[in-house]
């Protein structure tokens, strides 16, 4: 799993920050300002690079009842098998400098691969996951799955 990300303040346009009230998600990490996107936040959202620009999109589903899979993560294999075949899935990049799992912040070079699906109430993004490497498991107290990183192997 990866239950949170952080992105430098300077990487998000001001208009997006006010439109989505991101100031509430602004944190100071030893003098560096960053937005944190955590699964526990309500609403949970993630920045997404799509059609050449950055958007803020609701992250997954916290409801077990709706048509969407519960959670903020889907395995790449399930997507390939047609999990979202009827929801017009689109692959995107979730830009991030850091990822958060089991109490540890780890470096992300460029971002995490994600999939955006269309719903009646608009687009929703999920992180794409694969079985965790030995490294990721050890770093995250044995998380069985890890996000798929863009141009980065850990």
């Amino acid at each position, binding site marked *: 799993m990866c239950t949170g990300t952080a992105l*430098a303040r300077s990487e998000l346009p001001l208009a997006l920050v006010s439109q989505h009230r991101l100031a509430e998600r602004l944190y100071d*990490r*030893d*003098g*560096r300002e960053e937005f944190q996107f955590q699964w526990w936040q309500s609403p949970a959202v993630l920045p997404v690079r799509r059609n050449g620009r950055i958007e803020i999109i609701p992250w997954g589903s916290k409801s077990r009842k709706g048509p969407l899979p519960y959670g903020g993560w889907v395995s790449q294999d399930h997507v390939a098998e047609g999990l979202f075949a009827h929801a017009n899935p689109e692959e995107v990049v979730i830009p991030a*400098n*850091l990822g958060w799992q089991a*109490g*540890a*912040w*780890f*470096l992300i070079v460029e971002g995490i691969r994600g999939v955006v699906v269309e719903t009646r109430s608009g687009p929703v993004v999920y992180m794409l996951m694969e079985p965790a*490497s*030995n*490294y*990721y*498991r*050890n*770093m995250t*107290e044995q998380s069985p799955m890890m996000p798929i990183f863009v141009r980065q*192997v*850990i």
Partner: protein
Amino acid sequence: MKTLVGFGDADSFYASAEVVRRPWLRGLAVGVLGNQGACVIARNYPMKRHGVKVGEPIWEAKKKCPTGVYVKRDFRWYETLSRKMLAEAGLFSQKIEYYSIDEFFWEGSATRGRTFRQTAEDIREHVKLSTGLPMTVAFARTRTLAKLFADTAKPYGAVAVEDADHETEILAKLPVTEIAGIARGSAAKLEPHGIKTCLDLRQASGLLVRRLLTVTGHDIWRELNGYRVTPIRTTRTPHKMLSRGGSLAGRVKDAYTLYGWLVRNVERLIEELQFHEVRPSTLTVAVSYFDADSATGVANLCVPSARFDVLLDAAKRGLRRAWRPGRVATHMHLIASGLKRGPWQQSLFDPADPKRDAVARAKRTINDLLGRWKLRSGATLFANDWYDDPANEHEVCDVRGKFCF
């Protein structure tokens, strides 16, 4: 012209190297994790201030330093910066030694119109400007003294200790364990004789020191007294042995996986043998176990060889002796010794094998062209996970030409 021994040591090198390529990390607490993602193998000063120690597992470190950022090690990058530092520091001396990945010794004089102290500052500034890396620089009469004074001036220090009186003043305050090469065991031997500080050691009788700490300790004693025991070595002295191996990336019980690692290590060793143009006459396989004592197996080669089939055959014999069936292995090392340098003569026991030589040549050419391990023995498939991670292609032992880790 007066010369002293110069010593440069990058401050928290791996972590600093990460900051160089990602300036946004500056000021943040950075920890570099080993290839298993479990232990902090290096950390910068901000993380150190939180009490995180080298070798500490991440689950402890993250409690002490919740804002810390963890990064995966990348020896390819560290080597690039290491060589850059060597080149830049080398501008100040004709004679520089590549001691370890982030430590250099050189023979140096003060730049014209500058004191040794100012020259140390100049070198430090120059290295910082040209590589982005913070380095501590010290000048002293010998290597041991220079390293000792640099250690006490960290981080980002620049010192010059030019005479015995100045040395005395500093040595009196340092416990003997501050000296690289004097571990706690040695210190315990010295203590009953009233030798606690570096100054005590310097003033002790050489005879006593040799009796307590053997020749190695005696050499340290001589260096403390201003006598240069080891010269600056500008080229690596030829290796007496070459070895490859390390962690098995987890616990290995299955014989095939162990065999996969053996073959991987044979291929890595051959690379090294070819680079140094040597052939071993003995091959030793050493295996460490989680639930049993380590074991070694020695195999002699009839004729020194660096050929895959010959070495693999010897390695198999070695592994057979070092293998403890049913036990869980954690580390494996392959050690080539009795290294012979050319020219090699054809012998009765070493018949020419043009076919196998051609295969070896093709393998090497393809890998030189397309990248390491692009063509490798099928047996390594048993240890295949390892090859999926490009960070595993390059280890600290792959940084050639330096004297120690």
